[in-house]
């Protein structure tokens, strides 16, 4: 499966970040990219900057001929072949490489969306679930961009609740065709795609996927939607009216379509997390450039603290996002690389191993999309009036970012997945969450320990301690919530959401910290900058965790119980804040000097 050996040493269980401690050597970071991956990043960046970005105006005007020609160029470069096996015209590279491409290509969102839909939901279902004939027929064309793929799951009345689709398939009397009827909504690439993976229920029951070529009688494409953002991408409804699909175009098993739908989403989620990075870096570059140019009160606005704070905030967002994204994809690659022999081609095996990291994938999706929203918002603010008009780049980036919190599962759905999935694993004993909570309760009931955590000789000792406290607060709060609601916790969406926020913060904090520690160990000159970013991020995470925890604790108990818990909580959350104002300035100055995000 993977052609590059993963540099991380250990396989870890999904979700285990909450109860286990990782060492820097155990996580994959952007600094661990192979020479090959670095070159692929460079090719992709150059392609995006030199070919895609200059065509943005044409794409925004929905000139899809230009889109297709750019997609073809991307195909010629091999960017679409990363996830496809070699025997079907692909490059069979690992998921890290695939994430790198998504990351670097995303400086212009509309093209990024078209590309991602093609290589992800448009192609992967066939890679994983296609028969040999289906793969031979479709993958070589999809690998080069000769054909473009699309994926049709959502309907007017079923989005997040995908299983509720109404589109029906009936086996025709001749036994050679399925006849599909229904209407799909929000289909990315629909305006120009050649191949659609369409979900329908056979006889209204068996949830299944079908491969439908453009031009198939009974398949028609509706009008383009007029969207808030990503206007350069194509989004149309799909109308199936007695659409005759050959039986050999059934993808996977009849009635097992939900495997395809949900698994593809996991990949989609970590890719989306990665794809938010390129957009954020590009916005930051624009913002820094403008802030340097723009004068107010006799100086460049880049010299003002509140502008620098936005620059630092955004840069830290990119740093943390990179840390989380590549850590996660590193774990996935490690797990996939460990598959032995023929099992390497078994979709079930791959699916199982990717699904293992469902929590991390959802975290990436939520965190990445919200980080990008924060960055583009900062940029509009730096541009001020000019940020609100179309002639400057902040406005489009601001509109384009918003969709990320909606597609690939809304951030609300993903928050429920994060908490729900972890709790389910805890309940079934797959993840030793309950013992960890019990152990923590013992610890907090005992008299305070006077072990000095600062005895560690390491520049981020304060943050190491803070992370340990953060994890304890997470366990403590989760324990309190599950004690009150037990299995009925799933009905308490607000509590689930707050717990998800705590988990997201813990994962982001730990990922950034481990990366900074790994950088320190290699005595790189970027180490100091990474440390400054982690220190700021640590404070930010910790405050967010405190707020969420306090809200949950207050919701699940009252009176003495609440008072006792708050006393414990105060002990766990005790710490002396660092000077994030000064650290932010250090971070901002480094970015301003480089003129872009730079580590």
């Amino acid at each position, binding site marked *: 499966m993977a052609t590059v050996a993963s540099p991380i040493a250990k396989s870890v269980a999904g979700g285990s970040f909450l109860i286990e401690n990782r060492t820097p050597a155990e996580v994959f970071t952007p600094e661990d990219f192979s020479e090959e991956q670095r070159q692929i990043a460079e090719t992709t960046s150059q392609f995006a900057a030199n070919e895609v970005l200059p065509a943005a105006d044409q794409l925004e005007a929905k000139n899809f001929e230009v889109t297709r020609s750019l997609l073809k160029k991307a195909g010629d470069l091999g960017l679409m*072949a990363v996830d496809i096996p070699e025997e079907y015209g692909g490059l069979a590279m690992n998921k890290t490489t695939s994430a790198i491409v998504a990351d670097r290509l995303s400086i212009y969102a509309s093209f990024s969306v078209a590309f991602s839909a093609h290589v992800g939901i448009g192609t992967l279902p066939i890679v994983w679930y296609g028969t040999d004939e289906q793969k031979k027929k479709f993958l070589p064309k999809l690998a080069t961009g000769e054909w473009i793929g699309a994926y049709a799951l959502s309907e007017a009345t079923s989005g997040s609740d995908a299983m509720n689709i109404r589109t029906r398939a009936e086996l025709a009397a001749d036994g050679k065709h399925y006849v599909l009827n229904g209407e799909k909504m929000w289909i990315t690439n629909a305006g120009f795609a050649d191949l659609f993976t369409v979900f329908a229920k056979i006889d209204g029951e068996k949830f299944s996927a079908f491969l439908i070529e453009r031009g198939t009688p009974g398949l028609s494409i509706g009008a383009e939607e007029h969207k808030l953002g990503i206007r350069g991408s194509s989004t149309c409804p799909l109308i199936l009216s007695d659409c005759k699909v050959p039986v050999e175009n059934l993808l996977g098993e009849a009635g097992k379509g939900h495997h395809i739908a949900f698994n593809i989403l996991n990949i989609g989620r970590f890719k989306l997390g990665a794809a938010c990075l390129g957009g954020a870096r590009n916005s930051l570059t624009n913002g820094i450039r403008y802030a340097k140019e723009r004068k107010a009160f006799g100086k460049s606005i880049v010299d003002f603290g509140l502008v620098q704070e936005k620059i630092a905030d955004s840069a830290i967002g990119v740093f943390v996002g990179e840390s989380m994204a590549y850590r996660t994809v590193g774990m996935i690659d490690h797990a996939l690389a460990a598959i032995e022999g023929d099992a390497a081609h078994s979709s079930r095996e791959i699916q199982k191993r990717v699904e293992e990291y469902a929590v991390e994938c959802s975290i990436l999706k939520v965190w990445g999309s919200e980080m990008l929203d924060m960055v583009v918002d900062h940029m509009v603010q730096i541009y001020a009036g000019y940020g609100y008009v179309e002639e400057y780049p902040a406005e489009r980036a601001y509109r384009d970012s918003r969709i990320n919190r909606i597609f690939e599962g809304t951030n609300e759905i993903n928050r429920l997945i994060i908490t729900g999935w972890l709790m389910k694993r805890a309940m079934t004993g797959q993840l030793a969450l309950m013992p960890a909570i019990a152990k923590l309760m013992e610890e907090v009931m005992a008299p305070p320990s006077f072990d000095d955590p600062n005895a560690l000789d390491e520049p981020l000792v304060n943050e190491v301690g803070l992370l340990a406290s953060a994890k304890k607060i997470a366990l403590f709060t989760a324990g309190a919530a599950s004690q009150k609601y037990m299995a009925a916790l799933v009905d308490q969406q607000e509590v689930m959401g707050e717990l998800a926020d705590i988990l997201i913060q813990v994962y982001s904090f730990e990922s950034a910290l481990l990366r900074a520690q790994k950088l320190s160990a290699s005595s790189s000159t970027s180490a100091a900058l990474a440390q400054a970013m982690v220190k700021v991020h640590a404070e930010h995470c910790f405050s967010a965790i405190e707020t969420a925890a306090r809200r949950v604790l207050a919701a699940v108990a009252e009176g003495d119980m609440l008072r006792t818990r708050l006393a414990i909580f105060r002990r766990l959350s005790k710490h002396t804040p660092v000077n994030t104002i000064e650290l932010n300035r250090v971070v901002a100055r480094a970015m301003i000097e480089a003129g872009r995000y730079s580590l």
Partner: protein
Amino acid sequence: MKILVCIKQVPQKDAPLKLNEAGTWIREDVSYEVNEPDAYALEEALRQKEKHGGEVVVITAGPTRSQQVLREALAKGADRAIHLEDDRFGALESTNTARAIAAAIEGEKFDLVVTGLQSDDYGAAQTGVLLAEILGWPHATIIIGIEKTDSGVHLKRELEAGHYQFIDMPLPAVLTIQSGINKLRYATLIGIKQAKMKPMRKVSYGEVEAKLSKNLQRIERLYVPVKQKKTEMLEGTPPEVAKKLVEHLRNTVRVI
């Protein structure tokens, strides 16, 4: 045609450079990339090979990090690479760099050597010409067109002020290439993947040391240039700036 392309790794164009503490060189903790004119030389070599067949070999001299530009060249389609690998190669003047390259390719029979017209760091614009002298081959500089003929190559040289000249010369020869002669290609992913399998020969300093001589020029100090002219910077909103500027044009420059 068997073509050698001499390439160099230089600090990235937009990299903010800082002097080292001794003021003798820049701080090395910057990002590097291939010297732009060399990238055009490589592209031209690849195009010639695609037209006429043969082999493209890339060579560089420098520390371990400079291997990056060789890998990129291999990914773009060069067949193999030679790395004169040592920190000390960076401190050689052009003459000795050319000698080191000549020593490293001894026994290889190249038809053509191409390189960029100058480097973005030293900017001496000499190595290619000196290599020709050492090899005893004819050369031409600032080339913007190469056409293979029966007897050698038909070249278009750029001269100053919009002048050009065609020249013919036999092979083997050394050419220095002007930026913009062609459109650079991207390294494709398949190219990047295959590059790992391509041969890379390392040549140590010791192997060529005997062919080098003492540097005959020495950089005494490196510094941020002192500005010669006093520039008056105008500030304000665009209309304010326009007003100030027009005053200047009227009263000082007297063109209005």
